[in-house]
């Protein structure tokens, strides 16, 4: 028997760990991992609020479902870009990426 607000605390820890990683990491792939952490926290929040406010509805449920699909698409494209960048300058650290041209 758990008050469902505690799930919001868990997802807040996840979210702000992601913010910390996003602000301080230097490798672009590590930044992407932090973004995934933040997206996952929002998905959990959608499900929690759906459960808490409308236990018989499914709006937040479907929102989380589509959000998972969109974050999969996002990470696939971002990883393709990273691999392309690595092929050109042999590095994916953010402070080495100075020119954004092909």
């Amino acid at each position, binding site marked *: 028997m758990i008050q469902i607000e505690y799930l919001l605390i868990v997802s807040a820890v996840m*979210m702000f*760990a992601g913010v910390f990683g996003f602000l301080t990491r230097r490798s672009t792939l590590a930044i992407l991992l932090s973004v995934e952490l933040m997206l996952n926290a929002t998905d959990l929040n959608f499900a929690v609020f759906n459960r808490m406010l409308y236990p018989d509805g499914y709006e937040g449920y479907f929102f989380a479902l589509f959000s*998972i699909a969109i974050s999969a698409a996002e990470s696939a494209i971002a*990883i393709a870009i990273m691999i392309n960048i690595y092929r050109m300058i042999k590095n994916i650290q953010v402070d080495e990426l100075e020119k954004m041209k092909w």
Partner: protein
Amino acid sequence: MFVVLAVLIMLSSLATVMTKSIVRAATYLLFVLLGTAGMYFLMGYTFLGSVQVMVYAGGIIVLYVFSILLTEGAKDETFKRKAKDASWGFLLSLVGFLAFTGVVLTHQFKSYVLEAPSETASAVTSINSIGTNMLSTGEGGYLLPFEAVSVLLLACIVGALLIARKR
């Protein structure tokens, strides 16, 4: 069960951003995602939990590990951060976390107690009604976003192939 999952999620998400090796960061992220799937199961959202395991844990993490090994490998020097940047980032995220937690704890939410796995408690989220709602065009139907996501995934396949191809 909730406490175990919550501790797993919180410790792993902190370890994801603290660890030095990026492969280890991806592994800790896998634990975070599996713990989140466990939370969905605990809330009775069985289908959402299995989608989480399949798409996130099975797909995205494997993609990340492949791309880490394809680019810089397991080199440990990915975590050189300036102490000033790190303390600013830590301060910002701590302030955000404290503000959010304060709001959540002081706000009077409609009291809802999470019971043990309750798939039968909500007939709405059964697989049958999920399928019906996802492909219906009427009230509360999700056919348009469903089709939009399919077009998005097609564009994503073409775009990823176009960007990552060898020239």
